[in-house]
């Protein structure tokens, strides 16, 4: 409280990147895009459930980011949280506009092939992960939102709270409740999860 925090230096490169992008440096803007495209795309895909819509919306999110970038203030909210707030609004308005329903998406190659050559086990693994995604879709809105931001977009608890305009502790509660509920939803098909429940 009485002296500036030492943790600031950790964020200095990102801060510089954003300031350069705000000043019109196109390389910096390109780097911002590269750093956050996966985060934004995964969020859009998890919320909308199909690649085509996710691509459209992710592009729109970055154009909105560009429009809002001059007004972005580093001190007020972390960049990732700010960007995901835009993403959230864009996904909501897209879904409302188009009335789309989510469709099944194929799992990425790297997940499917991860360290296993046994076809039976791989298939089982794919099915389990697909079931997990379906279970996430069944969560109440608030829990689903937190789970997707935390695990699909990889936001920290603090950034998730800022992106959703909630208190950090409440984000933790929603995450905890969401994960408990996922276990309940998954247990009928995967009973081994039940014995591990806390």
């Amino acid at each position, binding site marked *: 409280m*009485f002296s500036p925090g030492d943790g600031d230096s950790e964020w200095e490169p990102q801060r510089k990147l954003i300031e350069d992008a705000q000043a019109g440096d196109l390389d910096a803007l390109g780097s911002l895009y590269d750093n956050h*495209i996966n985060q934004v795309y995964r969020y859009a*895909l998890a919320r909308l459930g199909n690649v085509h819509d996710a691509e459209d919306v*992710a592009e729109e999110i970055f154009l909105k980011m*560009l429009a809002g970038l001059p007004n972005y203030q580093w001190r007020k909210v972390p960049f990732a949280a700010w960007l995901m707030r835009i993403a959230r609004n864009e996904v909501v308005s897209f879904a409302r506009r188009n009335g789309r329903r989510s469709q099944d998406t194929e799992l990425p190659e790297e997940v499917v092939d991860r360290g296993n050559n046994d076809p039976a086990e791989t298939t089982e693994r794919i099915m389990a992960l697909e079931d997990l995604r379906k279970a996430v879709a069944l969560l109440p809105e608030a829990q689903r939102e937190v789970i997707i931001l935390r695990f699909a977009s990889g936001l920290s608890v603090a950034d998730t709270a800022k992106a959703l305009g909630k208190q950090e502790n409440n984000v933790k509660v929603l995450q905890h409740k969401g994960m408990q509920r996922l276990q309940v939803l998954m247990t009928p098909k995967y009973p081994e999860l039940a014995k591990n429940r806390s």
Partner: protein
Amino acid sequence: MSRERIDEMLQECLAAYEHGLTPEECLSAFPEQRAVLEPLFRQALSLRFAFANSPRQEYRQRTRERLLFAAGRDVSHAYSSQPDELFVERARRRLVANAGAGAQEALRNVPPPRLPFWVNARRRLLEAAAMPRPRAAFPMALALRGSLSAAVVVLAIAVAGLAYLTSQTRPQGVSAEVAQLEVQWQEVQDQLASGRPVQTDVIVELTTKASTLATRLSAEPAQAAQAPVAEKLSAIIDSQQDVVNESPAPELVQAQQQLNQAEEKVRILASRVESPTSQPSAAASTTPEPTNTPAATATARPGPTATPAPVLTGQVRMRLLPGDTTYGLSWTEVRTSNMSFVIPATWEVTNVVVNSSGIATLDSSWLSIEGDGVAVLANTRNGEIQSLIEGERIELRTEGKNGEVIDLEELVQVADEAALPLRHMLASLELTGTLGN
């Protein structure tokens, strides 16, 4: 083990995993909690895999191009084209040639050499000698100078007199010094609120001042009758304690002790000022035997037309609100010096003690309220409100005058059935005293 601790461990495991550790290595850091932690960690990792899709490379590139196009890259390129080299060379040559011609023209305009200075000086001297001499205005000038000197002397005497009188003035009253301290402390708080560092010396100086004033106030009976001064000083001390308690600086340890003693003195003073005979509080007036009755029920419940007297720091007053039937419930108002809000009449404030004067007081800065399986903690110093519902800690309001209140949608999500009473409680919250100013 608490849910919060498990969450912390889960976050640590996920962070370690992101930094390259295997799940087994992450879990091995928590051997005793492994049984609880492992299923959560595995589930979190599964969620990460389930949503690990990355956009197609072609899409990434196309969207990047569009973004940069929208940012004006192509416009910049269009305007950043280089001029023809031959054109540059010709233009340069023309510029140099023009500059040379200009220089020659400038030399042609140099004025003729000036006359030696002594020629002019001699001429001015002769002109001056030829002019008639002006009349001396000696007497008038003398009178003017004399009157000016007298005015200066009078002014000097007045200034000296004022300085003497100022130096002879009696020491400042405690109330004036408390007011001065309040202003100084407000400056410190403003500085802290704006994120600027405050020197520890300044904090120490102001806490010492508060402590000295508390001592003086408690030693002077005439000052002791001034309840507002005691209350103001108490609020400053509270605020200083908050700042000092949050600081790790070792220099502030003594300040912390001083403040604790000062707080005690001001509390005693406040209870002396607010004695049942001199200024009966609602709590005291309707509680004949306060020691036999639980705190929450020992408090007064005056009629709806009663005008509530101010509540001093550390005191609590509760009264039933017959006119409030929100959600079909009866409601009780809970009021402290800094805040007031309503709670269902069936809920109880559990940490109020009744002192020897029959006044309900708090044993800490937190008000603890319980009812219908809900526990609420309200910080009377900073306005923070927390609740505990089915073992989950919910943050209802963040601290500060403009603390953020949980929105209704979120409240319903996390509080379930307790959402309605909590909603009315938060809606009724009013900050007063030092929190409201």
